[in-house]
């Protein structure tokens, strides 16, 4: 049987083929369909663009920023309004706000990546173990999860940072501690769905250990819904991190963290509004980007709920 290959069919037909010739073709085809659904949502594409721009700016901050983010011109450039030399104006230390916002994108990215890297695995492990083990283990783990879920996130993070001491690393730990419960819930729900399926029974009969079953056969099934949820949560993480920064509990000066920049601009809000307004704009744009992206991802990956 000679299968028509890509050169004869063209990429689109190959991807959308009703009879995929290999697993990878089927997988790529599905991914392509998801991508099509995703790009049909213009708002989601805008979100994706914003996030890519954030990553780009963070990587090339050194090249893009016109001035130093930490050392300002105290004599000649204090509290200047936005103009051609300083697009976003300067702050009370004579530092260029645009440069600080650009470097601040690194801190924002740092926070959300670390929170995701800490919180998602905790939730994944708790949820899959609870779902697979069942019984008392499930009951106890889920009660703990519910206790954390019932907490107001910002308040809990505040209390943790108060105990750990202010600083960006402690803020990350505090936010991660408050962020994992929804992931555990999702992972558990996914685990319950596949737990009694035939392929799990098959590996059980083959003598796979519970640890191996959870790691190799259950966790991969939970990843995609977890990614969507993490993306949806990114905006909330950014806002909480900025809130901690605003209260002086997150990143410490002279780090150009956006929330802390708003706090330092608060004194000048009535006359030099740009000092507080510009970093807030950055927070709004980036977290809106994540919200748009998450919204679109949810619709694209879960066709049932699209349009709802």
């Amino acid at each position, binding site marked *: 049987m000679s299968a028509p290959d890509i050169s004869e069919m063209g990429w689109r037909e190959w991807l959308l083929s009703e009879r995929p010739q290999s697993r990878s073709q089927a997988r790529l085809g599905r991914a392509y369909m998801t991508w099509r659904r995703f790009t049909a949502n213009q708002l989601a594409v805008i979100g994706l663009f914003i996030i890519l721009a954030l990553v780009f700016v963070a990587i090339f901050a050194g090249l893009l920023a016109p001035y130093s983010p930490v050392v300002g011109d105290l004599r000649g450039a204090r509290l200047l309004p936005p103009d051609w030399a300083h697009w976003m104006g300067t702050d009370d230390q004579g530092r260029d706000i645009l440069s600080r916002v650009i470097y601040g994108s690194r801190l924002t990215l740092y926070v959300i990546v670390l929170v995701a890297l800490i919180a998602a695995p905790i939730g994944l492990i708790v949820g899959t173990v609870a779902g697979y083990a069942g019984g008392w283990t499930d009951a106890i783990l889920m009660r703990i999860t519910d206790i954390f879920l019932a907490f107001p996130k910002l308040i*809990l993070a505040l209390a943790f940072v108060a105990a750990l001491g202010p600083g960006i690393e402690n803020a990350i730990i505090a936010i991660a501690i408050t962020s994992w419960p929804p992931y555990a819930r999702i992972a558990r729900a996914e685990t319950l769905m596949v737990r009694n399926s035939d392929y799990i029974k098959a590996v059980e009969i083959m003598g796979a250990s519970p640890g191996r079953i959870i790691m190799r056969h259950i966790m991969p099934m939970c990843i995609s819904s977890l990614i969507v949820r993490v993306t949806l949560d990114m905006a909330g993480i950014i806002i909480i991190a900025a809130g901690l920064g605003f209260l002086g509990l997150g990143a410490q000066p002279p780090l150009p963290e956006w929330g802390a920049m708003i706090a330092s601009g608060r004194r000048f809000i009535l006359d030099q509004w740009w000092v507080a307004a510009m970093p807030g704009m950055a927070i709004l744009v980036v977290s809106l980007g994540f919200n*748009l992206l998450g919204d679109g991802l949810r619709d694209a990956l879960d066709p049932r709920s699209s349009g709802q």
Partner: protein
Amino acid sequence: MTNEPGRRRKKASALALALLRFVFIAAVTFLGLIAVTFFIGRVMPIDPVLAIVGDRAPASVVAAARQQYGFDLPVWQQFLLYVQKAVQGDFGTSVLSTYPVMQDIRRVFPATLELATVGTLIGLLFGIPLGVLAAVKRGSFLDQAVRVIGLIGYSMPIFWLGLLGLLVFYARLGWVEGPGRIGIAYEYTFTPVTGLYLLDAIIQRDWSVFRDVFSHIILPASLLGYISMAYISRMTRSFMLNELAQEYVVAARAKGLSEARIIWGHALRNAAVPLVTVIALSYATLLEGSVLTETVFSWPGIGLYLTNSLQNADMNAVLGATIVIGAVFIALNLLSDLLYQLLDPRTRS
């Protein structure tokens, strides 16, 4: 029917079981809340004994205080003591105000309650109509606009919005009063009864105070209301879409009812049940959002109390305020679950 009493008894026992389960979950969650704050109190770098006696007290005084406050006991005994006190509302004394923490919280809590209530009302006033319209005109420009307005609400750092609001509506336009809860002219002449100033002004028929208080609360409450509206409109839309797809809507159309009657009279009434739970949750969210809002607006509520205590390392006050906010938040969450079960006959089977 011969088996009617038996069935009723069975129903009653099922309800009792559900209530028992509810009480158990509530108790475990509250205990968890207290355990977490206890743990936070343990790991913090501030020695609570030194905070009371001062760091220049002689060793004998420190030891005596350590014994008096139970810090020499094993950890589990300390925890039991802590739980016992917390349940009675005893969170110790605030170093900053020198009053018992609970007394402080009782004083400041009405301010937060008033702000969150007005905020939720504003959120409902705009959120429900917008959600209904978005569902009815699904896929239209209006629908997209409501979606984007909602997403912007989710993405907004509220403390920043508050600062800009003060800049525009207070400093530039002069439409509202600035930070604080009541004007300096009334602060010492006005005697609150309930602690909710709007209500107090109405009770005392003091309209000039009412105008002043209203003019103070409207800006922070509107900003919180926007956040709440973002959530309520989104949920309303999704509930309404669900209801509008039901068969009774088709039946009502076939009967020739007006579209307005179908939407507002039939579909929205059925969507109201899950919406009640959303309102409780949104209330809880505003309670949390009030922490940052109060800081920006110098609003003398529990949020400002918490952040002030934080900045002065007043740990009794921080943990006490955390427990109270957490307890109210948990209670609202549980209440929304319970309301859902009570209001929707379908979940009672």
